[in-house]
């Protein structure tokens, strides 16, 4: 199967830290995967997402997305990657439609096609009636949905999702997961981080558990669960591997 993302022996050091944030990280995400990137706080998930987004650099190793090195082809890759950050990264004083129009135009989508795409996605995510409302007046769930729509406006081949369902109600969560699944079926490969093990177990085709900057277990949720009779679900696998002690 063709790989969309390959991360080889990547090391990332932060100036004021003794430990490597990423310590020889190796990761492969294949085309069509919904890859769950799981781990405790401070394990290296956000650092990985930031590096893949091009927001920060890495010190050693090699990262390719769709066969292209991200350091050399950063600008070119930006058009093929969709990023949904954990923060609601929108302009709160603008309406949903204005936000989508601005972000969509920056991706270079033609005016007519962009309008159609915006209308389609707003309907798909149940925000059509609120498109002329300022984001600052949206509920938490609506903000999460608009945050996600911005990341998929340009129909990316590879979508990076950093905890896309954190802090929202069951209905919004279900709608987001359902639509992400549809998107995946249409050909978008997804790398997704979450602390919700139940959600990851049901949603992901493959998961990788990261701790202290390196992958410690990888496979399909079912594969990981069936590795031991002691495991009843993904959460028990996770707790066994990571431990129950609190992290930073």
């Amino acid at each position: 199967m063709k790989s969309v993302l390959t991360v080889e022996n990547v090391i990332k050091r932060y100036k004021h830290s003794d430990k490597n944030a990423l310590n020889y990280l190796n990761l492969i995400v294949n085309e069509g995967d919904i890859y769950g990137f799981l781990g405790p706080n401070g394990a290296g998930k956000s650092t990985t997402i930031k590096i893949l987004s091009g927001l920060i650099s890495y010190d050693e190793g090699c990262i390719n997305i769709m066969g292209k090195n991200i350091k050399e082809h950063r600008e070119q890759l930006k058009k093929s990657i969709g990023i949904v950050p954990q923060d609601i990264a929108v302009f709160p004083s603008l309406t949903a439609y204005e936000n989508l129009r601005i972000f969509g135009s920056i991706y270079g989508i033609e005016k007519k096609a962009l309008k159609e795409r915006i209308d389609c996605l707003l309907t798909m995510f149940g925000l059509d009636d609120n498109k002329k409302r300022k984001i600052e007046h949206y509920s938490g769930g609506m903000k999460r949905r608009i945050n996600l729509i911005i990341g998929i406006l340009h129909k990316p081949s590879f979508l990076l999702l950093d905890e896309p369902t954190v802090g929202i109600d069951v209905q919004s969560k279900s709608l987001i997961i359902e639509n992400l699944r549809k998107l995946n079926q249409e050909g978008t490969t997804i790398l997704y981080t979450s602390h919700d093990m139940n959600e990851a177990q049901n949603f992901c085709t493959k998961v990788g558990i990261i701790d202290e900057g390196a992958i410690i277990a990888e496979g399909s949720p079912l594969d990981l669960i069936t590795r031991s009779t002691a495991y009843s679900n993904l959460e028990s696998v996770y707790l066994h591997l990571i431990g129950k002690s609190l992290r930073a």
Partner: protein
Amino acid sequence: MKTFLNLLYKDFLLLIRDKAGLLLLFAMPLALVLIMTSMQDGIINVVTNTEVSLLLINDDKDSIGNAIEKELSQSTVFNTVNGRELNPFMTEDDLRHNISKGKYLVGIYIPDSITQTYILHFTHKIEKAMMGCNNTNNADSFLINVYLDPAIKPSVHSALMSNIREFMMKVQNQFTLKMYSDIIMKISGHTIQNLDLSQTQSLKVNEKIAEKANEETYRPNAVQHNVPAWTLFAIFFIVVSFSGNTIKEREDGSFDRLMTMPCSFAKYLSSKMLLYVFVCILQFLMVLAMGVCLFPLLGLDVFEINGHFFRMFLVVFCAACAAIGFGTAISTIASSQQQAAIFGSVSVVIMAAIGGIWIPTFAMPDIFKFLSNISPLNWGMEASYGIIMRDYSLLEVLPQCVYLLLFALFCFGTAVIYKKIKIN
């Protein structure tokens, strides 16, 4: 280009939706110019126009007292009120009380029999002189008490006392000349008709401003100082709004999101810069319109740009670039909106203070005069003064414009280097 235009549209929408920010950007400079000009113009009026309220008690009721009263009532500097007309029993203590309470700015008490005492004393002196005796006692004085409002500023105090002394000298000269003419008449038997030398000021001081050979030249006034001064202050104060908005985008993650899209840092920054340069120019045009159209209606002097609009426009443009460069550096280096707001506003106030926005640089101690050379606001002020009052050509304001642009480049360079270091 399309990305740039979209970013510009985004920044425009964000700007017009921020009502408090708009108020700071546009209402503040207008209010500052209007208030400061009116206040400074008012202070000047206190000294030069008929605005000084004066309470007078004339207990002399003779030649000297009446002459002083007449001169003061005819004066264009003082608005004289006769204390005895207000209260026939008003005493010197009552007059002092009125001044100390701030009801009048100046009080003058002319004591009883001052004319008679003066005549006796003067005649005695002349007679002694004619008899060949020496006038050894030169310390003779006849006290007329002047009371001043205790809250009066030192500069106004000096100007008022100077005016009052001038009046007294005038009255004394008139009176002395009259006495001399009476004595000469007695000795020679000739009558000197209407000798009033006091009205003849032969030695005149002709005040001229050292300006270029130009018919349309101007003296600096409150309007000509305050319009460019507060426009420059407002232009530089834009760093608070500019850096605040930039950091807000960074804090809410929208900046990072834009950086993950096909949008470079240079494009992101240049759209913001262009919009804020436009805001600065709009600020200048609004203040200019106020100086030209509104000030005359409020009784203030009209702001005369002396036909040099484009030279002034160039200075404003360069100052705007410098301010936005400074804002960019602050927004890149500061880690929070609060940090940027505090550092931005305090640094602009300091640059304004040493740059001669409040106090002209010539009135500063030497150390501050030297320090003013490093304030971008001073470069802007020097160029503005040059254009408005010294009729500077484009070439003559060019050095200040170049300093402002170099300052802008230095700030942009700092921001870009800092950003690169941060990414790596």
